């Protein structure tokens, strides 16, 4: 099986970067809420333990995946990406057509602050620690799954890890600068792109895994992304209620 071409590597980087950035924004909202309400000590301790747990996950599953035969790995990875990507894609469509509320970081922040304020203040706060830990760990697991599945099946674990690392650092820097203005991040648009790209990869790897040779090889990935993107645009346009689409257009 050949390695990915340059366009394939770029697509891989963009997909992992966007997926990691979206998850990091969600994690950062929780950490900032915990830190600002209960002090940064418990928040950072929660983050540190979560990062250690994530590193352990990578250390266990990363090398294990490299021992699985490539065709089997691509079938498993393709199916996981397909299911995972379809969930993101569906949610983004539902949000675009107004059937699901958009992910509002401001509302999540306010809700968390209210919840945390109900517990008494102390230098070491178990509730704050757990909240920061769970926030970073659960969002981080999604990043780890994306990096390991996409990276290992494309033989580009380094590229995938670099993309995720770049996203983590960038979101952390932006988060420090804008602090509580994470709601300005166009999360639904990012989730839509990531969902479509994950499904494109899922379709591609399932085909490769069962022994199919796609016409155009890696270019099939681009074709899937464009076709799925176009079909999404048609679906969103035709399912959006008329008065809403007029308001959006104006």
């Amino acid at each position, binding site marked *: 099986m050949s390695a990915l071409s340059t366009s394939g590597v770029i697509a891989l980087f963009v997909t992992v970067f966007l997926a990691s950035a979206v998850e990091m924004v969600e994690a950062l909202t929780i950490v900032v809420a915990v830190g600002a309400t209960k002090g940064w000590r418990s928040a950072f301790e929660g983050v540190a333990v979560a990062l250690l747990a994530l590193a352990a996950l990578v250390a266990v599953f990363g090398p294990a995946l490299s021992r699985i035969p490539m065709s089997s790995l691509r079938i498993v990875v393709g199916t996981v990406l397909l*299911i995972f990507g*379809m969930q993101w894609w569906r949610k983004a469509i539902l949000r675009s057509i107004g059937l699901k509320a958009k992910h509002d970081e401001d509302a999540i922040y306010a809700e968390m602050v209210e919840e945390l304020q109900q517990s008494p203040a102390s230098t070491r706060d178990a509730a704050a620690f757990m909240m920061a830990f769970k926030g970073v760990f659960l969002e981080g697991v999604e990043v780890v799954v994306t990096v390991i599945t996409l990276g290992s099946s494309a033989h580009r674990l380094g590229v995938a890890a670099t993309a995720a690392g770049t996203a983590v650092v960038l979101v952390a820097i932006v988060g420090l600068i804008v602090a509580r203005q994470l709601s300005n991040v166009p999360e639904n648009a990012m989730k839509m792109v990531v969902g479509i790209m994950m499904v494109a990869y899922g379709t591609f790897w399932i085909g490769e895994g069962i022994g199919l040779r796609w016409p155009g090889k890696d270019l099939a990935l681009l074709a899937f992304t464009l076709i799925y993107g176009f079909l999404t645009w048609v679906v969103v346009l035709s399912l959006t209620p008329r008065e809403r689409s007029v308001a959006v257009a104006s």
Partner: protein
Amino acid sequence: MGSCVVTDAARAVCGGGVMKFVRGFGKFLFEFFVGDTPELFVLGVAVLTIASALLHYLNARALVIALLPLMVFGGVLGSVLLERRRKSR
């Protein structure tokens, strides 16, 4: 897990902890892959099974190339329409 064999009480605590962890992890995996959209999980498995069967038993390469992305998009569209119908009730 060495501490689990010291006393009955410790065994009970550790055993309970392990079971709780396994149950929690199972629930997490279920939420992760199935969640509130079991139809997408079934679709993912069905896409793999149908495409594989068509390719290996009928050698229908061209059909699989056309059908695989169509099944995927059709499934997502179906799930969106299903949710739309649920909400309009």
